[in-house]
């Protein structure tokens, strides 16, 4: 009985860590899609870029892991501004299909580029010693790395929540998500806001990607392989909602992890079935605007 | 006692705290020529959307020829003879003028249910479409894509599309809006040539059009009916004048 409880807690814990990754990567996608209505299928490529930057910095240049994560956040976030200004901006008024096609094309180019530079083999991040072992949390011992991930996730959730709900910037973003035209007419510079949000979101994706390497692995196919997962987290949570992304990431992350553990073949089925059912009932997601 | 062509009973609609329609009861007999006027934001287009089924009412009923259509979807109402034009043209801009009308007629006659015979094998549809074009003097533009048409002619086509549905009730949402003064008489001519059997409700801001065309006028303010009457009665009513001209009545006490 105790063993079953231990297994249960272990699955839950792993699911939580996995959910944190999903949240950190997907939250940027949710807010930018909610803000500008832009379907960005290259978002997975930004996460992947963060992963590779973290790998390079820690393995080749000996940068400490937390610093490498921060660097990934800054570098990819800043770099994404170029994409937004030069390419994405041209398709804001276009339909979803055009946006999907453009960003898929960019994702393909990214995958090819990273394969060329890094090769197709899985990469790993050099993790500092204090994250390598296990931690005793009182009710059980868990891999320190997973604890670290959950901790970072929790901090980010709180920080983003606070930023979203309590700061002027957050209020402006929420206003623009709610009604772009109205926000413009009261003087909010929606275009500049979007560039900032996009950079933040891409930076967070990179951070999540860096964290994800040692949990779910990193190959150049990461960009499209997990893209579907990020998209359904965003769709189920509702566009432009941090609360929704948290909830969706938790539900989908825990269930996907549990499903794969209990049914190694086809355990992934459950989350897609949940997604289809939920979207049929609430097409705008749990907390999306109708 | 025959049922009215169109009737709304106590139709109301709110979006949260915002009420766009308050207890609107309207009756259009056969052959009606009713104008619907009111300041911007009064809820005129919302009322048309409620009648046609684009919006679901929070309360009230809509009846077409006595039949309760309140819970029917938009397309079902259209098939029962309720047609409308839109304030902003909703045409098939990439298709030719003729193809636009053929679609309207094809959907009405059920020709569009046919997957396997070419569109060209239904000459009756094309013939009828050409008749409509001839009636509105759009024949020379028959093969032109709609997006290449002058705005006034597009507006005419918008009306022709609604007429191609052979409606019993026709709702026109600002048919002359945006049309230059030298083109607008085409619209007016088209309106005057409308079948006398059709019950027509026309939303307009252009008072000349309304007074020339309408036999009865309903005034909508803030989502509610302010008054109904003949054009003369409406023109003389002080409340209507206040709403349009912003004349303030003297208030007792402070404030301002």
């Amino acid at each position: 009985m105790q063993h079953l409880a231990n297994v249960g807690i272990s699955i839950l814990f792993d699911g939580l860590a996995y959910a944190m990754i999903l949240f950190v990567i997907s939250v940027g996608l949710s807010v930018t899609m909610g803000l500008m209505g832009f379907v960005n299928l290259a978002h997975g490529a930004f996460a992947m870029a963060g992963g590779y930057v973290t790998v390079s910095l820690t393995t080749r240049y000996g940068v400490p892991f937390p610093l490498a994560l921060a660097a990934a956040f800054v570098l990819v976030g800043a770099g994404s501004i170029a994409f937004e200004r030069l390419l994405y901006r041209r398709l804001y008024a276009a339909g979803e299909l055009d946006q999907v096609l453009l960003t898929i094309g960019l994702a393909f180019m990214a995958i090819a580029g990273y394969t060329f530079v890094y090769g197709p083999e899985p990469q790993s991040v050099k993790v500092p010693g204090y994250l390598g072992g296990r931690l005793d949390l009182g009710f059980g011992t868990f891999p320190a790395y997973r604890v670290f991930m959950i901790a970072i996730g929790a901090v980010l959730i709180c920080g983003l929540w606070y930023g979203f709900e309590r700061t002027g910037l957050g209020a402006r973003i929420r206003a623009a998500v709610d009604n772009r035209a109205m926000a413009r007419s009261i003087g909010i510079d929606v275009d500049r806001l979007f560039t900032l949000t996009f950079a933040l979101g891409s930076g967070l994706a990179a951070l999540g990607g860096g964290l994800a390497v040692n949990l779910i692995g990193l190959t150049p196919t990461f960009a499209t392989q997990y893209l579907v997962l990020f998209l359904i987290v965003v769709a189920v949570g509702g566009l432009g909602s941090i609360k929704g992304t948290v909830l969706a990431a938790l539900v989908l992350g825990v269930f996907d992890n549990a499903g794969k553990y209990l049914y190694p073949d086809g355990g992934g089925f459950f989350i897609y079935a949940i997604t289809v059912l939920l979207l049929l009932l609430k097409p705008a997601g749990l907390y999306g605007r109708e | 006692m025959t049922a009215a062509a169109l009737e709304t009973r106590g139709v109301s609609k709110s979006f949260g705290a915002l009420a766009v329609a308050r207890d609107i009861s309207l009756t259009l007999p056969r052959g009606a020529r009713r104008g619907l006027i009111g300041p911007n934001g009064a809820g005129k287009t919302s009322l048309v959307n409620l009648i046609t089924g684009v919006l679901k009412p929070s309360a009230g009923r809509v009846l077409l020829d006595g039949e309760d259509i309140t819970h029917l979807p938009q397309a079902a109402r259209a098939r029962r003879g309720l047609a409308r034009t839109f304030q902003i043209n909703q045409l098939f801009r990439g298709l030719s003028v003729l193809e636009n009308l053929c679609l309207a007629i094809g959907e009405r006659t059920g020709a569009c249910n046919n997957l396997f015979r070419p569109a060209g094998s239904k000459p009756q549809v094309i013939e009828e479409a050409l008749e409509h074009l001839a009636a509105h003097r759009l024949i020379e533009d028959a093969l032109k894509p709609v997006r290449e048409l002058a705005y006034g002619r597009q507006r005419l086509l918008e009306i022709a599309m609604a007429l191609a549905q052979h409606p019993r009730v026709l709702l026109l949402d600002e048919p002359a809006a945006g049309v230059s003064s030298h083109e607008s008489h085409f619209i007016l001519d088209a309106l005057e040539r409308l079948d006398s059997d059709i019950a027509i409700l026309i939303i307009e801001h252009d008072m000349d059009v309304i007074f020339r065309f309408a036999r009865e006028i309903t005034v909508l303010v803030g989502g509610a009916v302010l008054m109904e009457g003949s054009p003369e009665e409406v023109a003389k009513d002080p409340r209507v004048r206040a709403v349009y001209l912003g004349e303030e009545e003297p208030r007792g006490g402070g404030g301002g």
Partner: protein
Amino acid sequence: MAASKPDLAARARAAEFLLRRHRLRAAEALPWLAAVLAYFVFPGHLVFGSQLLIMVLFALSLDLILGYAGIVSLGHAAFFGTGAYTAGMLAARCGWTEPLSGLLAAGAAAALVGWVSGWFLLRYRGLALLMLTLATAIMLQELGNVRADITGGFDGLTGITIAPLLGRFHYDLYGHTNYLYALAVLFLLFLLVRRIVYSPFGQALTGIRENVRRMHALGSPVHRRLVVAYTIGAAIAGIAGGLFAQSNEFVTLGVLGFDRSAAVLVMLILGGAGRLYGAFVGAAVYMLLEDYLAKLSPEFWEFGIGLLLVLTVLFARRGLLGLLEDAGRHFGRGAPR
């Protein structure tokens, strides 16, 4: 009101145009002539040729759904995969090796999946529809993995043996029979799709794509029309999948995946959606580039197709056929749509 002479002439012209629009034009024989010619001129490449024809069929099915009905789907591989597994499992698990009936079963199974999923999904548009179609395809993929014992899972389904076509035509190493088989199926289904596109129903689909608000206001049963188009598109995609399984005698769960859905979408956009022949041009360009570039290096191919896609979306939105049309118009020849 007497009609003036220029009026009568204009009427006659307009009627004439519409009445004759569906007639076959001489230029339409070109792709078929090319396909038949290829049989004789490239006898060593017929295996590639059949795969190309199968992809043309797959892209054609998407054209009906996306190019004409305007349904933006990221999960069209669901139907291709359903067809592939139906034909594959009939042969490998049930010993049913007759190819034509296998193909019919593949189409029917895919049609069923299309009908049921379409009935639910096509109530939505935009992002919700995009996500639902994607999730449905991946869900089917995972479902296939649940019973990997039957389906072979991601490792693949083997043991698909196909009986000689019509009892007489055996399959050789060089793919002669498969090529003509695929070509015949493509030809027949193309005629069907062409018929549908030029029918009043096809016009209604175009109307729904161009302005769904107006279609509702005209009394068009939009949802029903979309489901019919989706089901037919699904059936054709299923037949393409069936051909795929039969010709390769092997199929993996990748046929249901996002990559497959993305690939057919790219093919169609490259060629030009809503033009029927865009599927031919797009699939040919895609497959030829893949064959050529992937041999140089897989990264070249992936980068190249990504770049081509980006450039197409930004500068040649209506695809290669759109560019050709623009060029034709530029040089004086007015091409009717």
